[in-house]
């Protein structure tokens, strides 16, 4: 049996060996025990605490929750366990209070880290719940069908409400559903009129790692209904980069597609009528001027044909503009027939505004006609150099004839030169100079590139 001294030592050893803060108070709230861990935790030396009361050492505690817990344990004389905020600010402790002699013993440990981790997890869960809710709300509201798959074959899919409607998937009451694609109602998916096998569908390709961007597909159901679909798909990857599934977004563009087709048809029809009308005007002029003025008839016809050729270019591009190279070739087609090597073209191709295209074309046609009648293209070996630049926001074009017969300025200005100097200058808001130099005609155009490209503001 150990003696009294031994018991003290044993008690001391236990108190210090607990590895947790521990203190004890007597019935008058005086500290009787205050172990090393408690001293370190509170930052108070044992000698300064033992013998004083709790309310003396911690004056604020009497009115705090912790004071109430202590008083409660003292009164009930039972073991009390719980968690509370520590006397040290913003630390959490887990405590156990128990009767000890006529007072109570208090053992506790700091659980702030666990508590913080719990709070963080709860916040993360809440954020995730909110994100999920938002995402589900978005998925159910957007007019786009969305399909997910987490299956390497892409057979089992999750679809939003729009997808159920658009693709006629089996209807269920849940917000989202899983369904087997092969249990789908009879339908065919077509690309350019050709049936697409299951493995060739965007979602199934995406799950194999392919990125599918803006693909147009048609879906045809057994009742004959056809919808045009615009589809995008991409795979879903884990943080490690492994493919876990795929997502596919499908927009119904049937109406837009029909509208576009209709517009294209209308534009094509309009172009046809314009061409037909031009052909009638050509016939009227030709038949009217027949045997009267052959030159006038030919000049008129050539102008009309050039105008018509540029109209064709513009129609092909939905009247959005035309490439300058194409405009040049369309305007000088008749002049260069069999002489294509005699035109030197130097300048970067770019898209010009429809009105600029027509104005440039008319001017080039007149220059070409003049060159053919009197200029460089009228004699063997004569050449035309056409160079342009688009620097400093200016379009600068130079038409320069060489190697033709000696040139003398005309006695009066004809329609052709008026069309070039006045018509073109007005259309392009630029300067046009036509010079009849002895060595050959030189025409220079200097106009703002913005107007040539985008038309008049």
């Amino acid at each position, binding site marked *: 049996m150990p003696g009294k001294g031994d018991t003290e030592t044993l008690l001391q050893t236990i108190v210090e060996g607990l590895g947790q803060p521990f203190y004890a108070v007597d019935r008058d709230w005086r500290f009787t025990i205050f172990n090393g861990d408690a001293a370190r935790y509170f930052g108070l030396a044992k000698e300064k605490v033992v013998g004083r009361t709790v309310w003396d050492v911690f004056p604020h505690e009497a009115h705090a929750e912790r004071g109430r817990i202590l008083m409660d344990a003292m009164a009930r004389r039972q073991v009390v366990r719980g968690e509370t905020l520590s006397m040290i600010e913003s630390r959490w402790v887990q405590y156990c209070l128990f009767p000890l002699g006529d007072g109570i013993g208090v053992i506790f440990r700091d659980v702030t880290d666990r508590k913080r981790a719990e709070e963080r997890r709860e916040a993360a869960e809440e954020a995730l719940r909110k994100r999920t809710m938002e995402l589900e709300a978005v998925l159910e509201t957007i007019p786009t069908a969305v399909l997910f798959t987490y299956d390497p074959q892409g057979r089992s899919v999750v679809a939003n409400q729009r997808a159920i409607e658009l693709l006629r998937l089996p209807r269920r009451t849940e917000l989202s559903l899983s369904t087997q694609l092969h249990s789908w109602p009879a339908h065919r998916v077509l690309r350019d009129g050709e049936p697409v096998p299951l493995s060739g569908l965007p979602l199934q390709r995406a799950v194999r790692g392919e990125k599918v961007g803006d693909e147009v597909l048609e879906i045809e159901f057994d009742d004959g209904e056809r919808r045009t679909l615009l589809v995008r798909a991409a795979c879903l990857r884990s943080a490690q980069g492994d493919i876990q599934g795929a997502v596919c977004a499908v927009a119904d563009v049937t109406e837009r597609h029909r509208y576009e087709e209709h517009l294209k048809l209308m534009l094509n029809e309009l172009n046809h009528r314009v061409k037909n009308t031009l052909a009638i005007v050509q016939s009227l002029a030709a038949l009217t001027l027949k045997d009267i003025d052959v030159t006038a008839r030919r000049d008129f016809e*050539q102008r009309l044909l050039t105008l018509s050729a540029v109209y*064709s270019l513009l129609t092909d591009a939905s009247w959005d503009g035309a490439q300058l190279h194409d405009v040049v070739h369309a305007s000088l087609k*008749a002049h260069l027939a069999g002489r294509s090597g005699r035109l030197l073209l130097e300048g970067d191709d770019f898209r010009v505004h429809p009105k600029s295209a027509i104005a440039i074309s008319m001017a080039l046609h007149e220059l070409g006609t003049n060159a053919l009648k009197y200029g460089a293209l009228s004699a063997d070996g004569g050449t035309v150099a056409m160079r342009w630049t688009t620097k400093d926001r200016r379009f600068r074009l130079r038409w320069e004839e060489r190697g033709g017969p000696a040139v003398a300025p005309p006695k009066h200005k004809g329609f052709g030169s008026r069309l070039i100097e006045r018509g073109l200058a007005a259309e392009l808001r630029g300067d046009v100079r036509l010079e009849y130099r002895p060595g050959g005609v030189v025409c220079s155009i200097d106009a703002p590139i913005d107007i040539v490209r985008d038309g008049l503001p």
Partner: protein
Amino acid sequence: MRVLVVEDEVLVGMLLEDMLCDLDYEVAVISTNLVDALEQAASADFDLAVLDVNLNGQQSFPVADVIRRRGLPFLFATGYGTSVLVSPHAGVPVVQKPFGREELRRALAKLTAGFA
């Protein structure tokens, strides 16, 4: 060379006739509607044909089929682009309306090259 002209626009037909004469072709028949054109294509005496694609809103492809079966060459004249042509006529020469005499001459020359 005798030419079958199928063109619903009378004025354009007249100009075409003048152009063909200038180019030393002989106009066999000018037909202005699909029914007549089908009959002429089957029975008229001609060596080649110039067909307008759109005849009062109807396409002239059945006429082309008849001429093709007779083994005679033809070309289309149209205000539509070449995209309007469908098989088996996809490779047939086309002159875009309105066209000049030179353009017509070249197109006809291509057509008759194999028969020279």
